[in-house]
């Protein structure tokens, strides 16, 4: 599965913007994504990939998920672990 592609689809849906406007460098805050959206995005990713992302709004949050590329990297790290185990 192309992680970046799927993550873009999920974020485009949440931000209600056309997916072709998004790149790995698109910033979540520039898309008007708020903390409540991030929680929904994490949920959608977990459902899509069948993984659990270690995300706590008190610790992780914004810095880790600054751009779409960073979200995809976080997903890859978890998906990779799942494949290896």
């Amino acid at each position, binding site marked *: 599965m192309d992680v970046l592609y799927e993550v873009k689809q999920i974020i485009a849906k949440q931000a209600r913007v056309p997916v072709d406007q998004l790149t790995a460098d698109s910033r979540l805050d520039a898309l008007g994504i*708020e*903390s*409540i959206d991030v*929680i929904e995005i*994490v*949920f959608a990713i977990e459902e899509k990939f069948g993984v*659990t992302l270690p*995300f*706590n*709004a*008190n*610790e992780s*949050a914004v810095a880790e998920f600054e751009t779409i590329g960073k979200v995809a990297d976080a997903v890859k790290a978890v998906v990779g672990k799942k494949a290896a185990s």
Partner: protein
Amino acid sequence: MNQVVITGIGVVSPVGCGLNEFWSALVDGRSGIRAIENIPTQRLSTRIAAQVLDFDPDTHFSPKRVGLLDRFSQFAVVAARAAVRDAGLEIDEELALEIATVIGTGAGGHITIDDSYLKLYGENAAKVHPLTIPRMMVNAAASHVSMDLGLKGPTFTTATACASGTHAIGQAFHMIRSGQTPVAIAGGTEAGLTVGTLKAWEALRILSNDTCRPFSKNRSGLVLGEGAAILVLESRERAVARGAPIYAELRGFGMSADAVDLISPDPDGAARAIRSALVDARANVEDVDYVNAHGTGTMLNDRTETKALRSVFGKHADKLAVSSNKGVLAHGLGCAGALEAAAMALALHSQTVPPTANYEEKDPECDLDVVPNVARQTPIRSAISNSFAFGGLNAVLVMGRA
């Protein structure tokens, strides 16, 4: 306008159901947060909570009655009986007709709902228990308190999530102050710890997996709790005339709505509620010595609350003792504000600020004096207690010395 005083307190809490146990745990910072018991945790990633463990409904209710009461109603009735006993309040037929009962709860009978859905969807049962509806309805606790004690005056429920108990006490306070009723039984109750609700809270990504550390930089989120606290409020005139013990005076109540976001708190909304409570109490910011903070141990709340306090209190903010009870009690949602109002009354009574328990690391964005880990004996003239609910609904109480 009547002055309103607190003459009785009853609690059912994760650190005990007696006032002495409750208060000494708060003062010593002895946390009621433990590994979850009596609920299957295999499917949960959060396995801690502040549960009420020393509570056996069969010692409080007859076998015939106990089945009518969801746990949240049981807690409310037991706390209300204790509060009335503590106040030495005699309820004769004349008073019974006037006395108000105002009980806050966030969710009502969640355990009843969870049990019935488990049977229906999980076990494919054809029917659910015939008393499912009367047990789960959010006003059940208020109704049971009124029936148990024979209270026949104005009776209702306030449901404002984490501010429910505070809204209940504030409404009852205004009813006595205006002369609508001479006495009120008011507080909050919650018993919503089930696999279903814990999963739902987990999904919000704000629960801690170790403990609740309000205002501490290394905080990891909130921990859920349960319990009830009920206060007996009465006009000072009446309390003095009958020689009742007085814990503290209830002086002001303020409310506001953020009208911004369903989940993220707003410093302006919080500040408006605090200001409105101080105006209602005719108090100046300099009169306040102690803030019983909402202090949930989430990054958003703790920073927002700090900002709100700084904006209301200005320079005086640095002279405030600001502590949260949630390191000890965790977050009891609908009962939180009531347990914290009880704590504030006891703090004024003993002139002791209970500490913020589990505090470990200074957070530059929460730079008030948060009374870390050690209680402080200090003159407390007036105090406020903050409750800021999901949905952006805020409630603040002001109390003064007896």
